[in-house]
């Protein structure tokens, strides 16, 4: 019972991107996933990639308002990692028999479908940002990612005043939206 409350708190922390919560989960569950990957044809780097992707799936689930995890964090991460690794092996045309065995897993297909959709959206934004070029990319990152205000941005980028920075930001934003929506709407 105590553990269940504890996990709930951890997930709340995870949803806030709280470093302590992330570290606790990492510390407790990383090794089991690493063992799973390495015993099934993978390397340490693969283990890191798969575990981190599984963490992103858990993070997104924790952030969605109606979230309730009806199993332990360990089981969830294990199930997601297992599916992700199976998929990766298929893509690489490798195969591992151990993964087919019926371990303690839960159904995560719906969550992964949602994750794939968000993954595609993330890639679209990432690509649009990449195609933007400088100084637009850094300028928009400063505003939307680092949450700086226009005054700070004007100083950082050497614009004479925040009005000039605003005009530049507007131009960059219009272009980013075009780049993004030209893929998003397809």
């Amino acid at each position, binding site marked *: 019972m105590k553990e269940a409350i504890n996990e709930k708190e951890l997930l709340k922390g995870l949803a806030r*991107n709280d*470093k302590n919560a*992330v*570290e606790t989960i*990492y*510390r407790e569950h*990383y*090794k089991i996933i*690493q*063992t799973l990957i*390495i015993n099934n044809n993978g390397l*340490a780097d693969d283990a*890191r990639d798969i575990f*981190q992707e599984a*963490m*992103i799936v858990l*993070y997104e689930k924790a*952030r969605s308002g109606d979230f309730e995890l009806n199993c332990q964090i360990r089981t969830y991460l294990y199930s997601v990692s297992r599916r992700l690794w199976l998929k990766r092996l298929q893509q690489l045309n490798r195969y591992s028999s151990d993964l087919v065995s019926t371990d303690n897993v839960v159904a995560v297909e719906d969550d992964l479908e949602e994750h794939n959709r*968000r993954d595609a*959206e*993330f890639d*679209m*934004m*990432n690509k*649009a*940002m990449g*195609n*933007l*070029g*400088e*100084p637009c990319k850094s300028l928009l990152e400063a505003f*939307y*990612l680092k949450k700086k205000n226009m005054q700070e941005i004007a100083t950082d980028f050497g614009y004479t005043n925040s009005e000039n920075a*605003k*005009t530049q930001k*507007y*131009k960059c*934003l*219009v*272009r*980013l*939206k*075009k*780049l*993004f*929506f*030209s893929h*998003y709407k397809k």
Partner: protein
Amino acid sequence: MNEQNDLMILDAVERYIRGEMLPDERLHFENLRKSNSEVDQLVVEHTLFLQQMNRYAERQDFRHTLQDVHNGLSEQGTIDIEPAQRGRVVQLWQKYKKVIAIAATIAGVTAIGLSMLVNTVAPATKDPKVIELANKVNEIEIKTDNLDKKIQHVDNKTNTTHNTDINMAVNVYGTGFLIDPKGMMITNAHVVKNSRNIYVENNRGERFRAIVLKLDVSRDMAIIKIDDDRFKPFSALPYGIRKTTSELAEPIFTLGFPREEIVYGEGYLSAKTGFNGDTLSCQISVAANPGNSGGPIFNRNGEVIGILSTKETKTEGAVFAVQSKYIFQALEELKGNPLYKHVQLSTRSSISGMDKVQQVKKVQDYVFMVKGD
């Protein structure tokens, strides 16, 4: 609507969505939203965009946390792979380290012995042919060195163009349009003539570098070409270019970039000649702003009949255009260069039967913003 207006509206929309408006302003904006469907649509679109942006930012942040945590734990040695789980090759290596070392020593000693033996047996005199060959090898090496330098030089050159492209401060704007599917375009000479770097941008925000092939300042016309690996040539253009003069009162439409968006305008051909009876120009009646210059003028069949050029300041609504037949003439002059000998302009338009909305939809991908610094 002009650029400044667009900026203010988008800025207001963004502050509205982010909840940064004071109650009064908010009320005012909500009324505007109710009465103006364009604003309402912009709110919907921008909400979606900001949501995507937030998710993007959140995931970036979370990835950084994951990486930080991973590196931290890795330094502590908490998540390292345990020795028992190391790969088989490593285990074998540790087990047989000594044996391998001994074997290697024996092999080394044998090799040294053998080479000594060869040295004593081999003739001491140096064969002149061998020396000559070595010289040749040297020569070749020098040549490749030079070549390397040249390549580096070229590399440097391309690097500089890449960099300036990215950091370019834009001074001049105009419009341009493709006249062949591989990237040859027409724009105004004044847009590109004083620019060191030119790039073109389509309505999807994609930017490509371009170079000037031909400049005709007296006609204010330039032929430029997209010179960028990221540009994927089209299979064909949807519009043709008209070789003959158009008829008076013929309805026309234009596409251009007086602002960051592509803008449509319509009007009619008002005179068959241009300013002071210039026979290579014509006069059209259409709303045009500075960024429109260099843009195509289409007739109802979707054929390009001219290039929008100067606007006479004194007469309202009088815009002059270079007639499209001049494009053929200018291209002929370019054909002296063997690279462009085989460029053929199409006079056939595949969109002639369509309604205007469809025509505009089809041609807008071929019309670009042209920028130079």
